[in-house]
């Protein structure tokens, strides 16, 4: 390639390829491209590091030439350059191929001929320890119908494996998805690669977090997502297989192996499958995706890096305040009871609770603000033994809850996500605690679903 380029120039001087970095060591630039003009006496007359059109034209003028870098030729005015290879401490060691995070396509998957029982092979080689549907060529092709197999949807942290349509489809087959699930799974993978979700951290942490998928909009009915009774459990093929497909992708393409990079101390049963849909029909309020700016008649998926759901029972209270106070007490324990301001939570309100709360005139925002204002940790809890959250108390906000001085648990009402789901019987709701949140942790993301 270099020879071809040189032949296109009319260079009258010798051109060397510095493959052993010998010249780089002699002139020792901190970055490349670097320009070093050596005079007839052997001394460096001029050196320029990086790319700069003004500098290049000044050098050309000094040598009696016309300007060589035009202002509007499509190249930038200046670029700082990259660190010179000879300064890399271990340049002798082959480094990993650089990742092109913006490539539109990726490599086709290899094919594996398996002579043994394919179920046993798949359990051993791919996926979680439960049986999977073997991803045969025919099944994967059926899953990809209408899509370009090489299209690169994202790279899955922390190992940044290429999530092409084909690789996603192979994992979807294994999870038991129907082919039409690809229309939801592709946006889920896009959302999983969103830097705000910070999958790099979520996949490596010792915490419990796993991405929970929340499905909203008409796609719920079209694909059969369950949003009622047993919404967090094994109630529908759509919920179970979409959740499982994502978890298999995180492991098989992201490298989040539960006996390796995924360092979770106790884990999370959601790492088999973690997917719910909102019970929009039973909710008097706008659904989650509408809150996030999407039209009600469009579908969307949301990812939230959460712990397993923590149940809240309140079968006695007959007022919104009574029900929400019980939920606030559960919210106070998210992460650790004296840790404030650093975490979020998702509140999944059961239908009986929603009816009680709505009957008292609460809108969704009223619910959020009530929970925000009434979730706190009494100051007296900070006077005892040392523990997590105490050293940050100087940055906490003091509020009064039921006449008692408390530190406010959450940063803002928006730290509390609200979803309505579940069956018609039982006065239960659930709190799903977050991992570290905000720009330094994991942020909830919502993506449209065609």
């Amino acid at each position: 390639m270099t020879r071809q380029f040189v032949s296109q120039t009319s260079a009258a001087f010798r051109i060397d390829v510095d493959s052993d970095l010998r010249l780089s060591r002699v002139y020792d630039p901190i970055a490349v491209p670097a320009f070093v003009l050596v005079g007839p006496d052997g001394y460096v007359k001029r050196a320029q590091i990086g790319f700069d059109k003004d500098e290049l034209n000044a050098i050309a003028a000094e040598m009696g030439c016309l300007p060589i870098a035009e202002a509007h030729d499509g190249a930038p005015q200046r670029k700082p350059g990259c660190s010179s290879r000879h300064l890399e401490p271990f340049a002798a060691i082959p480094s990993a191929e650089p990742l092109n995070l913006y490539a539109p396509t990726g490599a086709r998957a290899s094919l594996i001929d398996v002579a043994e029982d394919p179920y046993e092979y798949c359990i051993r080689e791919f996926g979680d320890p439960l049986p999977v549907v073997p991803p045969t060529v025919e099944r994967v092709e059926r899953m990809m119908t209408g899509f370009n197999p090489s299209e690169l949807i994202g790279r899955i942290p922390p190992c940044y494996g290429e999530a092409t349509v084909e690789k996603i489809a192979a994992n979807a087959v294994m999870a038991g998805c129907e082919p039409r699930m690809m229309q939801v799974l592709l946006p889920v993978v896009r959302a999983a690669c969103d830097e705000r979700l910070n999958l790099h951290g979520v996949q490596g942490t010792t915490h419990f977090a796993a991405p929970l998928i929340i499905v909203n909009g008409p796609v719920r009915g079209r694909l059969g997502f369950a949003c009622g009774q047993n919404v967090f459990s094994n109630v529908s093929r759509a919920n179970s297989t979409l959740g499982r497909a994502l978890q298999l992708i995180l492991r098989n393409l992201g490298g989040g192996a539960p006996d390796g990079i995924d360092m979770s101390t106790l884990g999370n049963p959601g790492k088999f499958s973690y997917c719910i849909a909102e019970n929009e029909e039973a909710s008097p309020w706008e659904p989650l995706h509408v809150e996030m700016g999407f039209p009600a008649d469009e579908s969307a998926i949301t990812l939230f890096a959460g712990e397993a759901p923590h149940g809240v029972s309140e079968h006695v209270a007959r007022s919104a305040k009574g029900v929400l106070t019980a939920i606030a007490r559960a919210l106070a324990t998210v992460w650790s009871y004296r840790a404030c301001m650093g975490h979020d939570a998702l509140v999944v309100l059961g239908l009986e609770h929603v009816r009680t709360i709505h009957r008292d005139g609460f809108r969704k925002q009223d619910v959020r603000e009530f929970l925000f204002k009434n979730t706190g940790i009494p100051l007296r809890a900070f006077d005892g033994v040392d523990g997590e959250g105490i050293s940050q108390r100087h940055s906490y906000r003091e509020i009064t809850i039921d006449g008692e001085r408390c530190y406010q648990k959450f940063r803002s009402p928006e730290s509390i996500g609200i979803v309505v789901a579940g069956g018609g019987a039982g006065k239960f709701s659930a709190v799903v605690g977050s991992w570290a949140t905000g720009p330094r942790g994991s942020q909830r993301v919502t993506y449209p679903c065609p």
Partner: protein
Amino acid sequence: MSITLVNPCIEQKPQASRAPRLESLAGKTIALLDISKPGGNVFLDRVERLLLERCSVTHVVRETKPTYTKPAPEGLLEKLRNVDAVVEGLAD
């Protein structure tokens, strides 16, 4: 009879290898990278003292990641390229 499966796993293999081990710490510059977990400074303060007092390390460079939840930013990695070895300190 065999069956053909589409490989569902990551296929690009990372080529990076372990850096060569140092034969001695004497006269070396060692960086201690605090990943911003609670207690990391306590652990690394002690390591720094041991390196200087017992291992004849010439210079200890202390750096801190902005957050333990994300990879180190490029600028920080750049600073670590000029030392002989890095000790990354977890804590909690």
